[in-house]
């Protein structure tokens, strides 16, 4: 204990030294210092920990990766929408239901935009949400276990892209459709898109206690493409803003045909108004079919419920709830500054950024200064809502984040740079190249009321020569910049897994203290759990054989099983008896047509094996759990289908 205290003491001193180094370097940096100061800024010494968590979406990996900043070290890949043989997620009997949809079992998705839950507009670190783009779904991940706890499918949506952003108090996680489609789906000619296809914007309520999600209502909008979105905050709390493109409603060669209008729209949605409308019985219940998958930490098991109905709202039925703000050049990112006053449309085919003013928007609405309508939805006059234009000198603005000190940072895909500019004066302060073709960027809390404006991470789409080559396919690349000074300073490159689109970050102190170390065995409610090794048993139920197995360093109980027959379906229900931090056990059976299992302390997971050949077949622990890990193994004897050998099992000959 004394030694432990001493270590804490020296850590504290080391931190003080680091902090003072950082300050010195900051001063040097602004006067054009040596590169060595950048190295010191990202160096997290062995045994020390990062200042921020960063959660990077996995893109086509379907998952979410956890990094530390400023070091750029990866800590974990959290399986979300994709089967993950590393842990058995989506392979184990308990987690297969997580990937159920109305299309059946979908083992993959394209995850895009993580967002951390908020209270009063500030990150609260309870959960992180992320969207599945391809088969529209929203996932909720616990930030105490760092595991996916819930996935809800979004009906009437296709290309779930303007998702999954939370409102100021996590009242809703919002999901908008990128593709407009026939609603409800039906057999019709594609070229009759215009006027017939619709776009849905889904408001999914989040239970404040458990986080459980439920689609409260879907707004059925004109058939545009709803690209990205962000919530209003502060004064604009209660509103939600979506960028649109393809207001031309082209159904083919959108590359050209969706780029004809000089201006598309930002759709401003007064969700509070629509919420009040549906709370008073408004809206139309529509038949639907979508999966709601919930993982229970007590039973360590997920269940799927198919939901059969969704509440839809025609925006024309709620006057004053939806307006269009003309925004130039097919805007992509839709970002709201920490005060909630400015709504930024990043016109991706333009050099300029369009900034709308929330106050001017309200004035224009009150003054009924409309510039026509689209499908009955009023269009506000561009000049009446505009706060300013950022003449950036860059090309292809995509996304903007904020540092909480009155500055905004915008990525430019085509000119491959991050541009820092000032809110209110719209002047460009600094620009730094990225390597190469940056998509999103992330400042921890950078899209909340309280950003932590110390670093910005640029998430690039093209890697080329940044790392040692690995053939044609490479990981994507991120860059971290110090933004504590007037000018940005490039600190470090690091590869990222999959294709990160958006990312979310928060101070380590928000999550690290509450990160779970183990699951309590005495709270394990799994129906096949064994809470002590003496409860281990093997039970036959017709052709099904259930093995109630326990693991502890370093043996399985039982480790010899006889009486299994060809044609049986063997369920290994394995409970890890350990109650010690970071002592998982694994399980793998020879010839099994599924992945291994990785079982955390106190957890139960189930793997199925259908033996096809007579013989004596081994299994073993896949995680190097102790000095006797190699001894952690066992055998199953498989007899012919017509054998009358009774089931028996043992450990150590007992």
């Amino acid at each position: 204990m004394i030694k432990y205290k001493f270590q804490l003491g020296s850590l504290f001193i080391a931190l003080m030294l680091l902090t003072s180094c950082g300050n010195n370097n900051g001063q040097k940096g602004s006067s054009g210092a040596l590169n060595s100061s950048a190295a010191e800024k990202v160096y997290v010494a062995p045994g020390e920990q990062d200042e921020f968590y960063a959660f990077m979406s996995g893109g086509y990996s379907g998952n979410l990766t956890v990094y530390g900043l400023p070091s750029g070290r990866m800590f974990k890949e959290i399986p979300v929408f994709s089967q993950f043989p590393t842990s058995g997620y989506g392979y184990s009997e308990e987690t297969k239901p997580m990937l159920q949809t109305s299309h059946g079992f979908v083992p993959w998705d394209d995850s895009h935009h993580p967002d951390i839950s908020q209270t009063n507009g500030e990150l609260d670190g309870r959960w992180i949400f992320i969207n599945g783009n391809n088969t529209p779904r929203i996932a909720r991940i616990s930030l105490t276990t760092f595991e996916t706890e819930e996935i809800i499918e979004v009906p009437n949506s296709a290309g779930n892209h303007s998702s999954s952003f939370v409102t100021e108090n996590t009242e809703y996680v919002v999901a908008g459709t990128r593709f407009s489609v026939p609603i409800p789906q039906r057999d019709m000619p594609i070229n009759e898109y215009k006027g017939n296809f619709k776009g849905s914007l889904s408001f999914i309520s989040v239970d404040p206690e458990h986080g459980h999600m439920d689609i409260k209502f879907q707004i059925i909008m004109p058939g545009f493409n709803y690209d990205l979105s962000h919530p209003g905050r502060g004064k604009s709390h209660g509103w939600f803003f979506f960028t649109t493109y393809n207001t031309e409603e082209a159904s083919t060669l959108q590359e050209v045909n969706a780029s004809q209008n000089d201006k598309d729209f930002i759709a401003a949605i007064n969700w509070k108004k629509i919420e009040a409308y549906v709370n008073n019985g408004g809206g139309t219940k529509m038949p639907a079919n979508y999966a709601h998958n919930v993982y229970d930490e007590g039973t360590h098991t997920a269940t799927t419920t198919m939901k059969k109905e969704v509440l839809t709202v025609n925006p024309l039925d709620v006057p004053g709830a939806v307006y269009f703000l003309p925004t130039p050049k097919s805007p992509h990112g839709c970002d709201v500054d920490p005060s909630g006053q400015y709504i930024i449309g990043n016109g991706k085919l333009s050099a300029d950024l369009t900034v709308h003013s929330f106050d001017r928007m309200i004035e224009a609405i009150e003054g009924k200064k409309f510039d026509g309508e689209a499908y009955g939805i009023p269009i506000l006059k561009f000049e009446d809502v505009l706060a300013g234009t950022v003449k950036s000198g860059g090309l292809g603005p995509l996304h903007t984040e904020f540092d909480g000190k009155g500055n905004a940072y915008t990525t430019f895909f085509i000119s491959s740079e991050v541009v820092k500019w000032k809110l209110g004066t719209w002047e460009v302060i600094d620009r730094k190249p990225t390597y190469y073709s940056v998509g999103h960027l992330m400042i921890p809390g950078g899209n909340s009321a309280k950003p932590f404006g110390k670093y910005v991470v640029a998430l690039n789409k093209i890697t080329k020569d940044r790392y040692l080559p690995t053939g044609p396919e490479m990981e994507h690349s991120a860059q971290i910049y110090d933004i504590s000074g007037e000018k940005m300073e490039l600190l470090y490159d690091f590869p990222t897994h999959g294709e990160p689109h958006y990312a979310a970050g928060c101070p380590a102190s928000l999550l690290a203290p509450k990160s779970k170390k183990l699951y309590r065995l005495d709270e394990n409610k799994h129906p096949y759990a064994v809470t002590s090794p003496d409860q281990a048993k093997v039970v036959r139920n017709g052709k099904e054989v259930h093995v109630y197995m326990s693991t502890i360093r370093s043996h399985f109980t039982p480790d010899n099983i006889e009486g299994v027959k060809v044609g049986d379906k063997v369920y290994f229900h394995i409970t890890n008896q350990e109650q010690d931090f970071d002592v998982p056990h694994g399980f793998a059976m020879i010839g099994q047509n599924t992945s291994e299992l990785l079982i955390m302390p106190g957890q139960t997971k189930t793997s199925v094996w259908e033996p096809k050949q007579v013989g004596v077949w081994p299994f073993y622990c896949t995680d190097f759990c102790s000095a006797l890990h190699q001894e952690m193994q066992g055998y199953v004897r498989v007899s012919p289908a017509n054998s009358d050998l009774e089931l028996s099992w043992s450990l150590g000959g007992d």
Partner: protein
Amino acid sequence: MKKASILMILGALLLMGLFQFPLWNIMLGAPQYPEPLGMNIYIDGIQGMNEFDIQNIDGLNHYIGMKTIPKAIDMWEFEVFPIVIASMSIIGVIIGLFGYFGKVSHHWFLGWLLVITILGVLGMYDFNAWMIDYGTNLDPNAIMKLQNPDGTAMSYKPPLLGHQKLLNFDAYSYPRLGGYLMGAGMFLTFIAYFLGKKSKTINT
């Protein structure tokens, strides 16, 4: 003598701290246990520093064939110690009260101190004997059977006081708050004896 008697009463009462706070503590740190495992030894049983520490210490000890850490019902000490401590505390208070009202002399204070010291030494002897048995009386079928360089079987006895390296573990053994309170109480009764002696010299 009144002041001395009050100190005597206070000193005796401090023993009662042992019912609330641990007497002794053993911590086990290792490279893979940066947050060390630990056990608090109370007069009525042993508890882990963290909820699962005892279970995890037992889990590690099974490799070298050590017995599991005893539960309160497995050792007579955990029944007798509370009775002895409570009795000594009550007797000490009574002696103090008698001293306050001039019924007994300061020699009783010293007598009480001697008795508790002897009991304490016996307790330490018993504790050490238990640790020797625990650290050397190992399962002959243990997974790891280690020897000292001279060929004798390695002992895993934790130190009675201080630090000792046991394989990859650093073991630290020190008194804990209850033990310190007891020590302070004994010291107070010692002061009480001196004050009593001094006041007597002045009075006479």
